[in-house]
């Protein structure tokens, strides 16, 4: 999960770093054909890796999704049965719904905090040490993050509840209560990823010509006004990109839930779609069914990616 998220984000980093390349490559379009041949040569290693590690498993996954397969007996072809069953499986739909709930909590809070942090970094301080510190939570492995917060937020023995109790506010079962568990997991991951997102947005803010701020200052605009009228509109393309990529990463939440659910967590209230697939595949050994669910998820993510592409194209003219 983590690698996929990280990959998605490094694409963002590239985009953020060189947004002006888009125009340049358009001008280069009419080059002789030999360049393309050379390009394909260079692409071969990547394509081979893609074919072996993504293409082939994906094709096999599609085949398995049409079979009844428990890993031990040979797969038996069942046609679209798995998909039909999936459509009627309340657990599957519940898992999707829970995932969407998580994504909303996680993305909204993460984007707001990240935007605020980025703006502060941009306008207030440019200390490298501070920027590095923001990244710290992101460097901690997700499982460690989850364990750390499970201890801190424990309903009975956790430090946070000790504080709440000392203030006579009553304790909260952050991970134990079905009502609180998902918001808690969402906020824990927000804590872990806000720094990174903020850094991406900050990089985007650096692209905004400083003279805009100078003229605004001369015109007597305050910081809030400048944020609203300069930063936000100028940042829009980067913001859109970061938003959609984080969204896809967020959809793939697994590790925090797996750790929280492996303890005696809030049961079905946090069983997200990746966890559903994992259980079907590796706990119940319904490989075929799990493959079908994974493919449906891939489809959902595919739709989100198309949205991402559309947003990207729309944003291009914005920066030019």
């Amino acid at each position, binding site marked *: *999960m*983590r690698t996929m998220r990280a990959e998605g984000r490094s694409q963002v980093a590239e985009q953020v770093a060189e947004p002006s390349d888009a125009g340049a490559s358009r001008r280069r379009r009419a080059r002789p054909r030999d360049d393309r041949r050379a390009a394909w040569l260079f692409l071969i290693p990547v394509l081979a890796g893609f074919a072996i590690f993504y293409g082939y498993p994906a094709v096999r996954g599609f085949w398995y999704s049409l079979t009844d397969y*428990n*890993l*031990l*007996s040979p797969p038996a072809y069942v046609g679209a049965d798995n998909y039909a069953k999936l459509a009627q499986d309340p657990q599957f739909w519940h898992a999707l719904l829970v995932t969407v709930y998580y994504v909303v909590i996680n993305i909204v809070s993460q984007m707001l905090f990240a935007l605020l942090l980025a703006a502060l970094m941009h306008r207030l301080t440019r200390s490298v040490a501070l920027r590095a510190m923001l990244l710290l939570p992101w460097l901690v*492995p*997700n*499982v460690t993050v989850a*364990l750390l917060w*499970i*201890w801190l937020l*424990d*309903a*009975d*023995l*956790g430090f946070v509840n000790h504080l709440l109790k000392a203030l006579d506010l009553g*304790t*909260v*079962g952050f*991970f*134990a*209560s*079905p*009502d*609180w568990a998902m918001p808690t997991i969402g906020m824990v991951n927000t804590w872990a990823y806000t720094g990174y997102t903020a850094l991406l947005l900050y990089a985007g803010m650096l692209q905004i010509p400083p003279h805009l701020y100078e003229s605004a200052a001369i015109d007597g605009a305050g910081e809030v006004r400048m944020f609203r009228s300069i930063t936000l509109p100028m940042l829009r393309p980067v913001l859109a990109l970061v938003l959609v990529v984080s969204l896809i990463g967020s959809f793939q939440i*697994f*590790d925090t839930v*797996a*750790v*929280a659910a*492996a*303890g*005696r*967590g*809030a*049961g*079905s209230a946090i069983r997200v779609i990746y966890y559903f697939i*994992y*259980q079907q595949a*590796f*706990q*119940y*050994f319904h490989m075929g069914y799990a493959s079908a669910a994974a493919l449906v998820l891939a489809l959902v993510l595919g739709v989100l990616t198309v949205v991402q592409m559309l947003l990207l194209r729309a944003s291009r003219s914005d920066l030019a």
Partner: protein
Amino acid sequence: MNTTKRAGAALLSLALAGALAACGSGGASQDEASGGNVEIDYWLWDDNQQASYQACADAFHAANPAITVKITQTAWAQYWQNLTTQLAAGQAPDVWTDHGSYYPQFVASGQILDIQPYVTRDKVDLAQYQEGLADLWVKDGKRYGLPKDWDTVALVYNSTMLKEQGVKPDEMADLTWNPTDGGTLQQVIAKLTVDENGHDGLDPDFDKNHVKVYGFLPEWADGSQGQNGWGDLAVANGWTYLDKNPWGTRYRYDDPKLAQTIDWYKQLIDKGYAPKFDKQSTLGRDAVLNAGKGAMTFAGSWTINTYLGPDAEQKFALAPMPVGPAGVRKTAINGLSDAIFAGTPHKEEAWKWVKFLGSADCQDIVAGNAVVFPAIRTASEKAAAAHEAKGRDVHVYVDATKTPDGTFLLPITDHGNEVSQIVQDAIQSVVLGQIGAAEGLKKANDQVNALFT
């Protein structure tokens, strides 16, 4: 052993779930070339027991110099995934430690060798094992393992708190329980519950919203068996899990006797004697007991070292299960076995090793290390003696196995994992008050039984 407990031990590596197949070839033995020497691959999950079985392997090698046993330990959370993927890849270990809730699917797919012919040929004495354990591993006249150890359940309590609240240890040995008023068990639980002003649960001034020490800690992540409490009490109340065991196909979670038991638990929570489900620590009952915030719970014999070992932060002692409405104490008994991979090229050598694991020679070694109770009765006694020698009074676990009708076997059926999830979810929503016990369990039972149609 108990599944949920094991899972907790191995939280860390869950995130690796996706990447399991490729790494590490536990490989079938590929060493015929090296002078007739055979290497047997043996898998287990409990790191506490690895030393004992290494000692067995050394003794075995000394007696059979041509066979070497290579032990691989994998944490519970990955054990079954690794085993299954290795089986799928044709790289399974020759012999592995087997568990009742996982082995049906291996039997169904023909992965485990039927050892009945070997047992008959070598005249293995099946009567030496604790009653019932050997039969767990038989299906349709075929035998898929020899018993290696067992576990039962008892009450564990904080003896300091007991003394402070004026309850005598003798009283603990004769507790009674029924689902209506909870018997003397509930009286003790109430007495051990203390609020922040020092009032106990029987005091009219008791403040259930500011409890300092809970008299009882229930386990709600207990799958479909309730081995750590609700299952044992419900059986004492006259409930049976299913039509027949092993290999039943109709579960009986809709039986009112089970609903009564769950309702009894719920009233403990309502009265403030037990923590609310949604405000309960997720770190496990042992953490809460060790922090001095709980006084008593049900604990399986696999946790002896947790509560009576050197790392326990409070003084704990054990008491037998309470006597139920039918006049009998009931505890679940569960055991493990060793399975031979049907596709192993070294069947004879693997059998020799399994036979040794199931013999007094190996089980006495295991007993001496005082970690688990071996399946052979004489070895169980030795394990109990080894515990006593370390100053741990564990006789209640062994006593249960000697009481006529004092133990019951946990269900062994197909679809064990799915049943586990469905029933656990249902019980949790009952405890949360989202649905009534009778209604919630009826719904779960329908779902469970639908798996078998």
